[in-house]
């Protein structure tokens, strides 16, 4: 049986792991390689690295980091942050990443999704969607949550699937960093609207939040950062708990 995936996310800034609350108030959370190795030992199913300060000058630094990660980590990992061309994606994939994730660039140039998936296969294209309810509809945000696009989240999700995305990383900005639980309503809506895996992100605060996610939505995976970084929820404990609640997970 296919297992539900638990994915720790490492936000990278200047080569260090950091974590913010509601996309702000950034604090240091350690060396990404050390943290990645710890997650691997704890039983993480995949890892996601997001370079939140990616600039053109730092692209080389990021690809060096990706090479290092690829040498240390034998589970799949995704890298994102500032990827805005097929060449950017190629550099990251050729450095050893299994998947790349694009967000703002996918909104600004939709053919990027198609171009990357044609070259490397749709399985390596994760389109990240940051969403927030604006009192009328669920709206897509870009640029780290700073710019509202006017796009309807559900329609955008369907569109990225058609364009060649292999997976959607859905972050509810209403919940991100608050630890009030995943945004089940939007996750269920999007997971029902598309036929590619949806990774839910934003708001995980307790082990039970993951039970709710996997019993009340069709999400394939749950992604979280701070609860894993600061060891509030060790991944092995989370998996044992999920297993006891009859949710299929990979146990070591």
């Amino acid at each position, binding site marked *: *049986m*296919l*297992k*539900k*995936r638990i994915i720790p996310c490492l936000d990278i800034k200047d080569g260090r792991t950091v974590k913010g609350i509601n996309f702000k108030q950034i604090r240091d959370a350690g060396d990404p390689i050390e943290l990645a190795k710890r997650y*691997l030992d704890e039983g993480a*199913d995949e890892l996601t690295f997001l370079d939140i300060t990616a600039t053109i000058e730092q692209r080389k630094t990021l690809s060096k980091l990706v*090479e290092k990660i*690829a*040498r240390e980590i*034998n*589970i*799949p990992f995704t890298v994102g942050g500032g990827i805005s061309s097929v060449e950017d994606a190629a550099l990251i*994939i*050729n*450095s*050893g*990443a*299994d998947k790349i994730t694009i967000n703002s660039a996918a909104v600004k140039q939709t053919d990027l999704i198609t171009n990357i998936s*044609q070259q*490397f*296969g*749709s*399985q*390596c294209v994760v389109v990240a969607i940051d969403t927030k309810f604006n009192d009328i509809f669920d709206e897509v945000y870009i640029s780290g949550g700073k710019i509202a696009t006017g796009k309807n989240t559900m329609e955008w999700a369907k569109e990225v699937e058609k364009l060649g995305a*292999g*997976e959607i990383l859905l972050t509810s900005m209403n919940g991100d960093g608050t630890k009030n639980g995943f945004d089940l309503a939007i996750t269920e809506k999007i997971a029902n609207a598309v*036929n*590619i*895996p949806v990774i839910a992100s934003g708001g995980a605060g307790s082990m039970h939040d993951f039970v709710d996610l996997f019993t009340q939505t*069709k999400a*394939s*995976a749950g992604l979280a950062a701070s609860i894993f970084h600061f060891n509030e929820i060790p991944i092995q404990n989370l998996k044992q708990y999920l297993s006891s609640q009859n949710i299929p997970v*990979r146990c*070591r």
Partner: protein
Amino acid sequence: MIAIIDYKAGNNVSVKNVLNGLGFDCIVTSNPNEIQKAEHVIFPGVGEASTAMHFLKEHKLDQLICSLQQPFLGICLGMQLMCKHSEEGQTDCLGIFNSRVRKFPATEIVPHMGWNNLITTDHLLFKGLKPATDFYFIHSYYVESNDASIADCEYILPFCAAMQKDNFYAMQFHPEKSVEAGAIILKNFLTV
């Protein structure tokens, strides 16, 4: 020496990294002589079948691969290319195995992505594994269960997860991305 065939389909880096970590020397190459001389050949790959076959034909690697005598392991797309035909791009493949590659019906999420357990036989590749160990899969097309199958898996329907014929071995999952269990399988293959 182990040769990892480079045919511009996805990343060969991870297979190389795992083999290096296990203490094996390997080269990533599309040079026919180097492939021919290798003691073991690994044929990994993610990507699209028709593009990959086109590259192999253009570089005359298709005939070379079929003629190899040493232990040969296809992974993921590599396994699918060793079959007779793939529905992906309606591609005629290498035909080492007589099976066909089909697209998963869209009754559930496609691709089949994530960790899933094998239903294994007692084949030597699986020596030392705990029962029902999970491996990492990522694919939208599958090989139908067949006579050469040495492990099956189930997602939407039962399909072939690994097969063997003579010196040719193939697996749909990614041993190089499947922690220690994957390393055990690679080691078992390299001691063939």
